[in-house]
């Protein structure tokens, strides 16, 4: 039987970086194929080429036996390919119906046939079990609802092949399971699916076949029932990587205490009556599916958001209303979620970024003038101590790789010997080597007595590093469990919000 989709020898380069190298892939009728790989392995690039967002440098794409013209989403859509993007391509200020209708009618039409469109949309919605309200503005929808709209957009354009890019990144377990049920139903209806993921359990549970990408190359294809998570993990990573081990030790006095904190933003409670305590020499891990309040928690501890109720104390000081400057002066170190947009000023040099937070201190300024030499010395010191490669104090920080930039950001925070460190998604987007290095530094700081709060969407990382764990669900925090008590089942339940009433912290 001819495959519905055939990618042959796809190669794509971005300057010096080869994102895809000679990748070939096939999809059969009614099949669910999982595209597996670490961050940066080239999965999204490959799918973007299929859908026409990018043009491949070499190679061809055939859909239902016909060559697909490169670089034109319109051609892909016409051929029956639909894409559900990881970052939703929706306009918040417009309604669901408007978002779905875009591009489906000829631009030269005098008027839109909204009633026909509405019936078609509701028809598809009923058929595939994806309920929506067509006249609501997208900005008012929850993340799960927005994803449904994104899927309906593709189905509305009569997609026969559906690509889903990390579809469960923003969904909780029950929602994710429901999604995969829906997808399975779609294949019975004649659709063929590819979904991109880096989550092994999902791939094992929901796919018929798995294709593994690593470093831009296709390294393996397996029938899902013939493989195992262990084999897939090794294929994904390429080697057995040793992550540093946490050694149990006694923890000290409480350093940071959050008590009954509520944070309100635009009328909604993004943090709802949360409490936590971080002790000296301890790593407290906060786990949860993306979009459950981690951002607000990070903002709270970074000084960018403030409690509308409850208190946040560092030692004996109430720091609830401290801004970033005051927190820095109080000995709080923060590693932000997004190193590019928050952690560093890309166009500035390494030394400027290294001391940006502490410019006003006597160490780096004198009567308003910058002590450039002292700052450069400090940068040199950080580069050496934290193994930041490819950098001199004068290098523009934008040129560093993600891992090295993160090492510098972490290093500049740790070098101050902080009382409390916020590590917000510290290894997002990093390769294994960099992850190991970051973990090592965090554990070292822990040994030195720092109190660390780790926010992570990677369950494995949180379990490896944390002494105690709390789950964050819809802005609320569960009671903490110790590392020993935290098995997969318990954590799964916590992250799904299944707590005994006494469990809510």
């Amino acid at each position, binding site marked *: 039987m001819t495959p519905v989709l055939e990618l042959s020898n796809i190669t794509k380069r971005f300057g010096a970086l080869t994102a895809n190298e000679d990748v070939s892939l096939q999809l059969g009728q009614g099949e669910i194929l999982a595209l597996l790989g670490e961050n940066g392995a080239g999965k999204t690039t490959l799918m973007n080429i299929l859908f026409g967002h990018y043009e491949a440098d070499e190679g061809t794409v055939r859909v239902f036996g016909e060559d697909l013209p490169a670089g034109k989403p319109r051609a892909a859509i016409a051929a029956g390919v639909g894409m559900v993007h990881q970052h939703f391509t929706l306009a918040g200020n417009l309604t669901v119906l408007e978002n779905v209708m875009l591009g489906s009618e000829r631009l030269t039409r005098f008027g839109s046939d909204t009633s026909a469109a509405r019936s078609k949309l509701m028809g598809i919605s009923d058929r595939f079990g994806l309920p929506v309200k067509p006249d609501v503005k997208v900005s008012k929808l929850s993340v799960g609802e927005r994803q449904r709209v994104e899927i309906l957009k593709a189905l509305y354009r009569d997609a026969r092949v559906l690509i889903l890019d990390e579809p469960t990144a923003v969904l909780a377990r029950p929602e994710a399971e429901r999604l995969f049920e829906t997808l399975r139903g779609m294949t019975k209806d004649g659709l063929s699916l590819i979904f991109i993921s880096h989550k092994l359990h999902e791939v094992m549970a929901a796919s018929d076949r798995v294709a593994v990408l690593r470093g831009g190359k296709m390294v393996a294809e397996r029938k899902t029932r013939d493989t195992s998570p262990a084999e897939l993990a090794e294929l994904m990573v390429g080697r057995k990587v040793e992550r540093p081990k946490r050694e149990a030790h006694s923890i000290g006095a409480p350093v940071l205490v959050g008590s009954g904190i509520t944070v309100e933003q635009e009328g909604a409670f993004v943090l709802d009556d949360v409490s936590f305590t971080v002790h000296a020499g301890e790593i407290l891990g906060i786990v949860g599916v993306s979009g459950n309040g981690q951002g607000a928690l990070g903002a709270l501890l970074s000084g960018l958001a403030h409690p509308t109720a409850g208190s946040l104390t560092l030692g004996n000081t109430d720091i609830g209303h401290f*801004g970033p400057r005051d927190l820095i002066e109080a000995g709080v170190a923060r590693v932000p979620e997004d190193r590019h*947009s*928050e952690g*560093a*000023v890309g*166009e*500035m040099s390494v030394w400027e970024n290294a001391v*940006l937070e502490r410019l006003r201190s006597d160490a780096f300024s004198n009567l*308003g003038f*910058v002590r450039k030499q002292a700052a450069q010395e400090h940068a040199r010191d950080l580069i050496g101590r934290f193994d930041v490669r490819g950098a001199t104090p004068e290098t523009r920080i934008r040129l560093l790789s993600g891992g090295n930039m993160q090492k510098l950001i972490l290093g500049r925070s740790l070098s101050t010997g902080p009382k409390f460190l916020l590590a917000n998604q510290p290894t997002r987007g990093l390769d294994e080597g960099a992850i190991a290095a970051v973990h090592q530094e965090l554990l070292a700081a822990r040994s030195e007595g720092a109190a660390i709060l780790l926010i992570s969407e990677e369950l494995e990382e949180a379990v490896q590093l944390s002494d105690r764990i709390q789950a964050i669900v819809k802005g609320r925090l569960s009671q903490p469990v110790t590392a020993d008590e935290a098995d997969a089942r318990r954590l799964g339940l916590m992250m799904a919000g299944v707590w005994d009433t006494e469990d809510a912290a």
Partner: protein
Amino acid sequence: MRLERRETVPLALVATAPLAAILCALLLAAGLIGAAGVNPLAAYGEMLRGAFGSRLSLTEMFTRATPLILTGLAAAVAFRARLWNIGGEGQFFMGALVTAWIGHSLGLPGPIGMAVLLVCGMAAGALLLAGPAYLRLHFGVDEVVTTLLLNFIVILFVGLMIEGPLRDPLAFGWPQSVPVDSAYRFADLVPRTRLHMGLLVALAAAGIVWLILTRTVFGVETRAAGLNAKAAAFAGISLPRTIMGVALLSGALAGLAGAVEVMGVTGGVTTTMSPGFGYAGIVVAMLAALHPAGVVVAAVFVATVFVGADAMSRATGVPSFIADVIVALSLLTMLVALLFTTYRVRR
């Protein structure tokens, strides 16, 4: 064709960008000169002669450059922080008005009085820009529109003042303000020309601005805020404080331009004393790639074009508006040139 971000920006490229931009602008304007039936090369020759040809024309050119240096600095300082100060014209006039008003009957000894007046001019400009800056910070109102609209308001206000409370009773015909006391006028830098000590003030200002931007904490923080506001805020830099600081500095520089012009050239205020110094300052700043040293050079270029165009017009009959065309084209070509310093074109 694609644009690819350059890894490093070669300094040589940044330095030649303005030259390439100016050449392109002159080339394009040559077409318009040709449309007037005049040989462009001859016309440009007249322009250069008009600006550099004699001792007098050279001093005229530098006299014209003096306020341009200051308004150029004002725009450069603001734009670096992404504060779009288009109100240089209004701030110029405010500085001039306040200087004439206070300087008319100040009563302090010469040098001290002059210093006081310069400070007053700066304060006037600074306060004028503080308003739009405040509106942006607390109400989210775009400062482009507010500073622009303020220009019109200020010029009307100046007209009101010089036809009313500040009217010079000794002037016939064209209304002008009471003159500043002669004790506070700048001495000639070159005798029997209009070139005055104010040029030194402008140059000093350029040096001070350079120092502030590169050596002080304020300068580094401002740069960070302009490049990545989110990261700057995360690092504890107070954006409102920084923006307001930038606004005060920028407004002060434009106000200083007005004060210097009154004390050096006009002696008083009229509604026509500025042929668009504020707006031209923006072009100067862009041509200088927002660099204080570049501002001096760019101001000389723009002054050359304006002074030279008058002479060119008299000699060849080409309408003197060609100067405005050349200056505007330079801004546009400089934009393109700057693009090529940041990006490489790839297939």
